């Protein structure tokens, strides 16, 4: 049963990732990325990481993708017409590089394939909110606070970058 779920979610994740890369409309790309995030959240549930599955949906599919869609609709981006119309050397080289990296990872994975364990039995109570929070607020308290500072700095930086008035006539030719 779990295997069927895994195959379903994995096929959904890969298909939505591919559709995101090759779809011409930017809004469609963003919505396919949301589908990809949701299937990854399902995979996290299969790995018994409940807290991170919920966080994945809340933060990624909820907050970050809404931000993306907001920017896409704010900028009113046109579709790319010439995405795959003509064959270019660039696409070929990019595809070759991607396949090269993939085969390297798979090759290095293949040499460890028998030494890796299956899902640990204490995982049923490791992935809960209680367990994650317990470790995060004791052992990892300082990085947690630093994350708060990082997010504040990001918000302030984004405000400064986005509201900065460009001087008139400053085109980059």
């Amino acid at each position, binding site marked *: 049963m779990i*295997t069927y779920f*895994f195959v379903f979610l*994995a096929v959904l*994740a*890969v298909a939505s*990732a*591919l559709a*995101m*890369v090759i779809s011409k409309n*930017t809004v469609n*790309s*963003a919505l396919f*990325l949301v589908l*990809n995030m949701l299937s*990854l959240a399902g*995979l996290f549930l299969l*790995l018994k*990481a409940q807290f*991170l599955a919920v*966080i994945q949906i809340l*933060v*990624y599919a909820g907050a*970050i993708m809404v*931000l*993306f869609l907001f*920017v*896409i609709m704010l*900028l009113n*981006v046109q579709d*790319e017409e010439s995405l795959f119309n003509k064959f270019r050397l*660039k696409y070929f080289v*990019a*595809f070759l*590089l*991607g*396949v090269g*990296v*993939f085969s390297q990872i798979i090759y290095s*994975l293949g040499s460890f*394939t028998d030494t*890796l*364990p*299956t899902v640990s039995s204490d*995982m049923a109570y*490791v*992935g809960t909110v209680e*367990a994650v929070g317990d*470790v*995060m607020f004791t052992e990892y308290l300082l990085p947690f606070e630093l*994350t708060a500072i*990082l*997010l504040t*700095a*990001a*918000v302030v930086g*984004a*405000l400064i*970058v986005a509201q900065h008035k*460009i001087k008139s006539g400053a085109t*980059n030719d």
Partner: protein
Amino acid sequence: MISIDWFLALSALLFCIGIIGVLIRKNAIVIFMCVELMLNAVNLSLISFSSHYGNIDGQILVFFALAVAAAEAVVGLAIIIAIFRNNLSVDINKVNLMRW
């Protein structure tokens, strides 16, 4: 139960789709979404290692990676808006101020 290899292979596949997307697309927003996809692929492999070894530290690292991804998305989209204001396009081939 599924062995960890399948999760790692899926993570590698998603990561490489992200790489190909970054390399072939011209729209800056789509490139940015491909970077998010690569971050997610790495998160998947971290969580699969964490749950297969029964150790919580991987999940904490994924939580911090999520926070960094949120910060990165905010700043990156602000930069994209600034670029769009400057030359009315998000096509990265037209952003050639620092290219010689």
